[in-house]
């Protein structure tokens, strides 16, 4: 759930007037953009030792090394994507917590739409079937109509 909200936070941080930033961060590093990017990367990368944590959450030695490495690469001016590619080359796609949009992951990404689509198709069928069957029972054939009319007439008299 947090991912999209995270984007929100970032957007917020970028759009907020500078007075909103807390000035008291004691070891405010010179390059806050690097830190911001690094943090985003930490969250999208898996700690390989304690596997179900992201790098951000992990205090494992390898994770600390990786974090250091990521910061360095970003400071060198590498983009987030380049850093990711570097790590994928060494550790495989397993390290990415956010799967790439590749053919292999196609079903993962279109799956939710397929599920919704199937649901909608079923609902549609359900309603149309209902209408068909209810139409059948609701309209009376001429003979019945005559009969009903007759009964009604009798009653009215």
């Amino acid at each position, binding site marked *: 759930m947090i*991912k*999209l*909200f995270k984007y929100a936070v970032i*957007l917020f941080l970028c759009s907020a007037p500078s007075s909103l930033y807390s000035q008291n961060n*004691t070891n405010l590093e010179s390059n806050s953009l690097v830190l911001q990017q690094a943090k985003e990367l930490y969250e999208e990368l*898996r700690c390989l030792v304690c596997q*179900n944590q992201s790098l951000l959450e992990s205090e494992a030695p390898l994770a600390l090394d990786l974090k250091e490495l990521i910061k360095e690469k970003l400071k060198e001016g590498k983009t987030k994507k380049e850093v990711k590619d570097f790590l994928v080359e060494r550790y495989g796609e397993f*390290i990415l*917590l956010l799967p790439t949009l590749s053919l292999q992951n196609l079903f993962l990404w279109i799956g939710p739409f397929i599920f919704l689509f199937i649901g909608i198709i079923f609902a549609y069928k359900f309603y149309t079937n*209902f209408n068909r069957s209810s139409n059948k029972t609701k309209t009376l054939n001429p003979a019945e109509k005559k009969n009903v009319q007759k009964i009604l007439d009798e009653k009215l008299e």
Partner: protein
Amino acid sequence: MLVELGHFCLALALSVSILQFVLPIIGIKLKSTRALATSTYSSYLFFCLVSFSFISLMWAYISSDFSVALVAQNSHSLKPLIYKVTGVWGNHEGSLMLWILVLSLYSLALSIIGKNIPLKIKSIVLSVQGLIASAFTGFILFTSNPFLRLLPPKLEGEGFNPILQDIGLAIHPPFLYLGYVGLSITFSFSIAALILKQADSIWIKWVRPWAMLSWTFLTIGIALGSWWAYRELGWGGWWFWDPVENASFMPWLAATALLHSSIVAEKRNTLKAWTILLALIAFSFSLLGTFIVRSGVLVSVHAFASDPSRGIYILLMLILFTGGSLALFAKNAPKLKSGNMFSPISREGAIVINNIIFSAAAATVLLGTLYPIFIDALTANKVSVGPPYFESVFIPLMVPAILLCGFSPMLTWKRAVFDNIYERIIFIFIVSILITSFLIYIRNGSAMTFLGIFLSIWLFLGTIYDFFERILRGKSFNEVAKRIVSYPRSAYGMSFAHIGVSIFILGATMSTAYKTEIETSVQIGDKIIVENKELIFESIKQNQGPNWLADVATFRISHNESDISFLYPERRFYPASQINTSEPAILSRLFYDLYIVLGEKDIKNKNFAVRVYYSPLLNFIWIGIAFMAFGGILSLSDKKHRVSYKTLRKNRNLSIK
């Protein structure tokens, strides 16, 4: 000795559960009422045996009997009593014991409450319960026996994972299992309906309270687990999309869908095949969760130690129960009488859309959780599907559901005239937009924050509007008062639950969007300022717990001159397991949480790494969930649920054929 007795009782319980399964079948074949009626007594007996067995295991823990292998592995004589008790289910074997204890409790409850259910239906239900019970009891006895002795006995236990020593974690399994296993009752009722090929409106009346009950427990159980993660894992987060968390979330999503569809089934006698399918799927998700947690097919921080033979056994159970029930569904569901008609624009129609969304959401969580397995099987590659994926697909799925939820209670059953509520919807929409815009204007926020706050207000206003409109229909003050009193509890329950969702969304949005996070390192006397609050690192002292050593820091927090409080985050070291953990300290106020984590000590310059999180409205998450659960309880207390279990006395004799 007691342990052997407990072991023996468990073996007896297995045979009793087999009888509970078999005798009703014989009863039906031979048309023998007596054989059918045994199922009730079997369920009583099974409950007694399992309880005794469970208590004997618990006694082994309390008395620190380290001649029992399980106790030696998982307990420690120095552990506080409460954690010795809750330690019973802190491991694979013991948690299964809790599982069957809860199962026996449900069967017992059904036997007692369901006296007026026609004997034939009741015994089929109990027979299915017996089958589930025997499968699980067999699972315990043959693959995961908790009563095995250790020779020679250990002098001291091996403790257990230090981060698991927490009250939130200790008490969440019972609630979770009350939820998981409660779904077995709706499952068994569905099997009965499929076997007898009839699901009339009284049938759904029997089923609904159980669905409601399990949903409530599941909600509480998941919330407690999440609360534990929040307080203990030290990242200020409360949901991590770990496979084990997902394993509890999928049944919840299915149960939520079931809850809604069963309203339609009850009120309007339609959507019955679908409701049955949901009940089957909800329980299957519980079993699937068991499989995921215990088989070791997925990596998880929470998973129990795994063993392939256990995995195979659970897989077989999954095939038997889910496969069997879905096959029965495929065969017999088309023979169920189709129900009443309704228009797509109606309360039922809205619930259908709710069901589509929740089912798609459950399927998506399932897809994401299992995708690494699929890819591994199909391409031999390894991929990870982590929180970023789930967050980016789950939220968009839920948005239409919340939008719908804001006004669908205003729709009438069968065929709603949209024109009647059109103005109200526009009114609520505009008011929500205005309030949200105002809030975003003063606090600044992104589009996503806007959406979150808007949805929360929209749902809140919609629910409140609907409630007041129904209440204020009365003309005089007295009439209104009367309406308030006579307003059905289940309707109150719905309003509470929906308002709970709205509060939850607000808490989740605000606490994430406006979270302030400070990572720094401090010496004694240093000051950190977060959101106008001054945190002063006053002192540090060493402390000794029952099985850990700790550095305890004292932080003095001043909100203003008169409002001062203290927080004591700890850095613990557990010598037995050589693990360092951080014990966050949280100042939890209604409108914000201040969360301090004490990190590594830098020996050279006596600095401590510190992380501080300020999360506004974080408590609203828990308050929202509490409202949801309370809504469930309110709804359960509605007269009509009891009525359905009482009124059948007259027909009772007619029912056995």
